């Protein structure tokens, strides 16, 4: 006999407010499901295979027309998942019906209203479904999970390609060394399960300013399996329940400084050996204006469709072109994602100092593999690529603003006046 625990998705529940520490394990409870991915987390979508018959035992007595059925594989395997039915009228947008309450009966679920059209024949629906989890001691939890279903017309098959993906994260509170912190966790998978620690992104309100900063590169965001650096010490995620309602952290070591990286802040210092064998450091041996550029490892077949320079190597070359007439009081430090820099080198006519590094520790220090900074002679960041966000259509949306080569030139010119 299973006991059922139904967790509401609205507001911070009582569970989220309760947090305890037992035997050195910090326990956080995350009672709230937020219906959008954490800003820094992308969730991988899955193909929704459709068939003439449902993929599980589900009733749909009033389903009429040439329906197709699909199964969204959600949960921990104790339940096949959540069924859906679709209808593809020839000259109208497709229709979608989801077993929202997961009662294996589609007749009590409405046809969903279309939420977003992103192309002439591309549609998104957003919905909250109930996902079933079973613990080892037989307790069953039914947990809300917000997702999107996406249909894109294929002229190849003269039908829609259907996909689905998680579109949410969980928030709550954790008490660490007696101090309560807001915490958020996103799973990068679309099963709705949180038990796979290698796919968890964690955000903690480290500075306790009341706001979780989940933008990419934030000092409050921790990539999967990364140590959680807090003022009280360094922790790791030891366990998270599959339903995402509870998390355990264990202390691993003492506090580690995790600098805020922003305009007006001191650039984190480092010393490394360049690929040419030279020593490169921030701060430098003598005052200089530094352009610090992080580039991903990319081969010639790769590219960035949303970057201003096409791909990072091109961007480095464009920046060099724009600043090459400046003097030795300017230096360009390129931190590459691999030792293969694809010929990135100082052009013969360049007067600026150019250094190319490969040192993952610098990537870790700056928490990025891509981005540009302009750092003044006193080692303060005066310009940088920045992530930002606003609220659109009721949910946060963010974007990445890159410095153009001319932006960088102008920032340097102002510093040299």
């Amino acid at each position, binding site marked *: 006999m299973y006991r059922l625990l139904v967790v509401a998705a609205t507001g911070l529940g009582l569970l989220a407010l309760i947090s305890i520490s037992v035997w050195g394990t910090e326990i956080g409870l995350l009672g709230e499901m937020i219906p*959008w*991915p954490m*800003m*820094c*987390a*992308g*969730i*991988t*979508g899955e*193909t929704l295979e459709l068939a003439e018959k449902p993929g599980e035992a589900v009733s749909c007595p009033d389903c009429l027309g040439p329906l197709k059925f699909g199964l969204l594989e959600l949960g921990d395997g104790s339940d096949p998942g959540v069924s859906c039915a679709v209808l593809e009228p020839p000259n109208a947008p497709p229709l979608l019906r989801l077993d929202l309450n997961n009662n294996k009966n589609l007749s009590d679920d409405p046809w969903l209203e279309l939420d*977003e059209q*992103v*192309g002439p024949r*591309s549609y*998104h629906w957003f919905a909250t479904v109930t996902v079933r989890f079973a613990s080892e001691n037989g307790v069953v939890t039914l947990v809300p999970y917000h997702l*999107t279903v*996406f249909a*894109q017309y*294929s002229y*190849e098959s003269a039908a829609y*390609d259907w*996909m689905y*993906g*998680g*579109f949410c994260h969980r928030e709550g509170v954790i008490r660490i060394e007696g101090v309560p912190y807001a915490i958020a966790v996103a799973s*990068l998978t679309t099963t709705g399960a949180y038990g796979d620690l290698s796919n968890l*992104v964690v955000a903690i309100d480290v500075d306790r300013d009341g706001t979780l900063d989940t*933008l*990419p*590169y934030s000092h409050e*965001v921790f*990539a*999967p399996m990364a140590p959680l650096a807090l003022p009280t010490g360094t922790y790791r995620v030891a366990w998270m329940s599959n339903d995402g309602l509870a998390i355990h952290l264990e202390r691993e070591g003492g506090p580690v400084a995790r600098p805020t990286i922003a305009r007006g802040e001191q650039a984190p210092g480092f010393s490394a050996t360049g690929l040419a064998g030279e020593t490169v450091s921030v701060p430098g041996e003598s005052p200089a204006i530094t352009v610090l550029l992080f580039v*991903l490892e*990319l*081969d010639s*077949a*790769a*590219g*960035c*469709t*949303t*970057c201003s320079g096409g*791909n990072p190597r091109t961007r480095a070359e464009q920046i060099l072109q724009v600043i090459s007439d400046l003097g030795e009081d300017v230096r360009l430090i390129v931190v590459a994602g691999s030792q293969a820099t694809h010929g990135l080198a100082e052009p013969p006519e360049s007067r600026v100092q150019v250094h190319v590094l490969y040192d993952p520790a610098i990537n870790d220090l700056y*928490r*990025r*593999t*891509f981005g540009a900074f302009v750092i003044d002679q006193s080692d303060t960041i005066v310009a940088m690529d920045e*992530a930002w*966000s606003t609220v659109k259509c009721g*949910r*946060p*949306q*963010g*974007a*990445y603003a890159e410095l153009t080569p001319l932006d960088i030139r102008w920032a340097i010119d102002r510093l040299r006046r």
Partner: protein
Amino acid sequence: MSARTVTATVILLSVVATIGASAAAKLPDAVARYEITPCYLTYDSHGCEDNGPSAICWQEAIFERYGISHTGGKIPLSFGVTVHAECAYVHLWVQKCTKETYREGTGRVSVRAQCFILHTFSGLCFYNDCWCSCTDY
């Protein structure tokens, strides 16, 4: 364009294969006496783009393979095509989605593979491992 794709194209430009006895046994009589082409790439496109709340990565390709009669006529031959799409989406780290699609056909085979990543942040969308290949048989 990947190495496999380049290889297929080079083969097209440099080789019009004369079939051997073993291959001839598998081909229609009208073809067997003449020449066949390898499967060769005639269209290739790939990319990654932000599309509303999702980043979509795709790879699509068209390959062709024919028997060439002594009059220059084309006889469609069977072959298979695999395309692979891999999209890297950069946030704090690099996140990838992948999809591979295989399709068999004759004469002219078109295939598309796509995968997607859901997000609220229109960040840096990379394609870094899209390729296509074909198989003669």
